[in-house]
């Protein structure tokens, strides 16, 4: 460990010319992260466009449009400082079916409520106090996401709470409006174009990883040759070759780790600033770079590529220096 610390200390003082390696890894990682994070953020929004362009399944209005409308009483209450929506349909089962919801356990009876999944932290044991009235929880709404902060109850229970409600009417939406058909459909077009763009970017990113690996390997080899006097001192002091090799590998891990972290920071900050400047100057919506598993995968790949390549370059360089 002390050998690794010594190598890192020498690097920090400029004895090993590693600054260009660090810069290279940071810039490559930054480029990869910026491209990937911003493209995935925009793709995320594109998927919303797709959702919007899709025909609606549900129609909601203040007045019944047909005899098949489902009457729903809706109210907003404050629970622990958060606004929660209370929904009391005249037929709970139909309301659930209209939303295509998934429910865990039973539908609510009198004095019972069905609670959205996100509201679980508010539960007090098996119940929940709403407007000062304790109510039993009959089950949970698992999906869709827009019902995850909703409390579903019967109209009878809603009346006992004494809250001010708004009446809405739900029904299944009619088919595509005006009978228009699209060829190709805008939804599939958005999806296909987005996937194509992401696939192309993935290919370009893989190319960047390959260049990063090559650059790290060559720079690692060159750094050892440039700093041969420093490494020769270690050899003269009797540092075992095996330990020296291991130390170079550990040092390359540390350097890659630091550089990838900096690259990640540069990539995220640059893409956020770019989107912000576009938003301010062109009036387009500001898209924040999103955190995703894909981003973590990109960082892991950048770290693995650069550390392995750098370690190989350093070790190969050290072998050639030590062999002379």
């Amino acid at each position, binding site marked *: 460990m002390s050998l690794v610390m010594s190598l890192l*200390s020498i690097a920090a003082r400029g004895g090993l010319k590693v600054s260009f390696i660090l810069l290279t890894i940071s810039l490559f990682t930054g480029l990869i992260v910026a491209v990937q994070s911003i493209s995935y953020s925009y793709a995320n929004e594109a998927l919303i466009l797709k959702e919007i362009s899709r025909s609606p399944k549900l129609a909601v209005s203040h007045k019944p449009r047909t005899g098949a409308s489902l009457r729903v009483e809706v109210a907003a209450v404050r629970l622990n400082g958060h606004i929660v929506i209370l929904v009391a349909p005249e037929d709970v089962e139909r309301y659930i079916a209209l939303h295509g919801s998934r429910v865990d356990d039973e539908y609510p009876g009198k004095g019972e409520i069905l609670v959205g999944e996100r509201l679980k932290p508010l539960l007090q044991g098996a119940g929940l106090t709403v407007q000062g009235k304790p109510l039993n929880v009959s089950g949970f709404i698992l999906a869709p996401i827009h019902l995850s902060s909703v409390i579903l109850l019967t109209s009878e229970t809603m009346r006992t709470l004494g809250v001010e409600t708004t009446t809405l009417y739900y029904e299944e939406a009619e088919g595509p409006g005006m009978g228009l058909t699209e060829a190709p459909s805008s939804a599939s077009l958005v999806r296909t174009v987005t996937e194509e763009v992401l696939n192309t970017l993935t290919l370009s990113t893989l190319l960047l990883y390959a260049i990063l690996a090559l650059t790290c390997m060559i720079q690692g080899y060159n750094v050892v040759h440039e700093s041969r006097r420093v490494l020769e001192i270690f050899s003269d002091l009797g540092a075992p070759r095996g330990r020296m090799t291991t130390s170079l590998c550990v040092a390359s891990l540390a350097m890659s780790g630091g550089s990838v972290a900096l690259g990640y920071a540069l990539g995220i900050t640059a893409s956020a600033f770019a989107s912000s400047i576009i938003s301010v100057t062109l009036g387009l919506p500001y898209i924040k770079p999103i955190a995703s598993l894909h981003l973590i995968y990109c960082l892991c790949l950048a770290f693995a590529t650069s550390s392995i390549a750098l370690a190989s370059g350093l070790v190969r360089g050290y072998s050639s220096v030590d062999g002379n």
Partner: protein
Amino acid sequence: MGSIRVAFSMAFVFMATLLVPLLPLLINGAPFIGDSWVHLGLARDVAASGRYALNAYNERWPLINLLLAFLMLVTRLPELYVGQAVPFLAGLAGLPLYALCRRLGLSRASSIVPVLFLSFNPLYSYVTFSGAVMKETATHYLVILMLLLTVSALKDSPSKPRMASLFLVSLGVVFGHHYAGLVILLFLWALAGYELIGRLRGESLRLHSVLSTAFGFTIPFSAWNLLNYLALGAYFPIFNATDGLLLLAIFIVAWTSLISDGGPFSSKRPWLAPLAFLIAVMGLRGGLYILAQPVEPISIWEARNYLVAAGFSLSSLSIGLKNQCLKAYASAAVSMLLFAFLWGYTQLGFVLLIKSLHYFGPLLAVGAGFTAAALLRRGNLGRILMVAILLFLVYASSTGTTLALNGLGAYSRGEVEAMRSFPSISPGIRVYGDTRVSYLFPYASGLTISGLKPLRDMEHSSLIILLKPNWEQGFLYDYDWVAKETIAPDEQLLKRGRVYDSTYLQAWL
């Protein structure tokens, strides 16, 4: 500068810095911002019952509530006056700031300047923060004290009493406010990072003490905030993983930008600090945020004020950044401001921007101290220039202070008295009012407000409470201004009966 003149200036400056936070009480007779009533009410209940509960959000930050309750029990003074202990404490923050500047190597005369600059910064209205009886204000003194203790601990040998003091102050910050805690968390880890690099370069031997301080803060900070997160059910995605990663990314960039001592990207050229200043101006006056409140275009005179403030506070900041502690604080303060800007242009983003300015302010103030030191070295001309700039800054910041003291965030004694004498309302009648009313009403008369909606949507048997600024300036909806006509146009108001009328309060049924 002669020692008598310095002592005289010091006395004047400290008087001014103590006075500014007390302006809301001295001019209007009541503290600033609605949060004040929540904490005064909580402290009153704690003092009366002798029990402290940790249920609601505002109870989860016991520093201010217990401080006020303690003072109420000890002094037996009216709550309104006891509450002024918090703005007074904010004014007292000038003392550790002065000591901090002295520790950073500034002369006695130069160290007075940051104290003055903190209170008279034209970038934002300091009084809106320091004049409030709220969590952040109560923690402000501890934040500056924490900086001072860290600088002292690193400059001298870190003795056990000093580390114990640091730990105690850390706990105060943790129980004071989460935003202040986050700033200190970033500051301590930035410092640990710089110390690690210093250790590798063979320049520093204080890594262990910095790491113990960082861990000593991080563990209670994480535990307390995690507990609050779980207990309060903070499940709504206000701050999610994306925001966490964005903050981390900005922090790494800000930290790295100051790591080197030479070159274009180094502490000699701290380019992120001017960028943060520019962003703050754009955020405040650029109309970037989606707010109901119209933003007047920036005038050439305001631009001049900002330019002078930026020039005075940033031109010599790089000299101060030779100190690792200030470098670490700069990383944290700049990160928080940039993060607030990149968080999004919503109302909450704007609130974050304002909050971040409270921690960017001390950095600018210290920077101003170093510019003052440079000016003082230039003889009489430098001294005259410095005094002229300081007088100009006092004048430039007075516009914001005056606007704030007459704005919707301020309360007046008349409003408080009117609320207190408001008759009790029959149960079953809904009472509506804006954010100002919804904070003051529960404190003064124990009734709850059902929020605010346009008059046409209110039930006929409901009551709407208007305070004087409502019919003069408009309504405050959350933190946003809404025109009077949007909520209560005169023709609709006149359809209702005025059941209560005083100079400061009207109730319409």
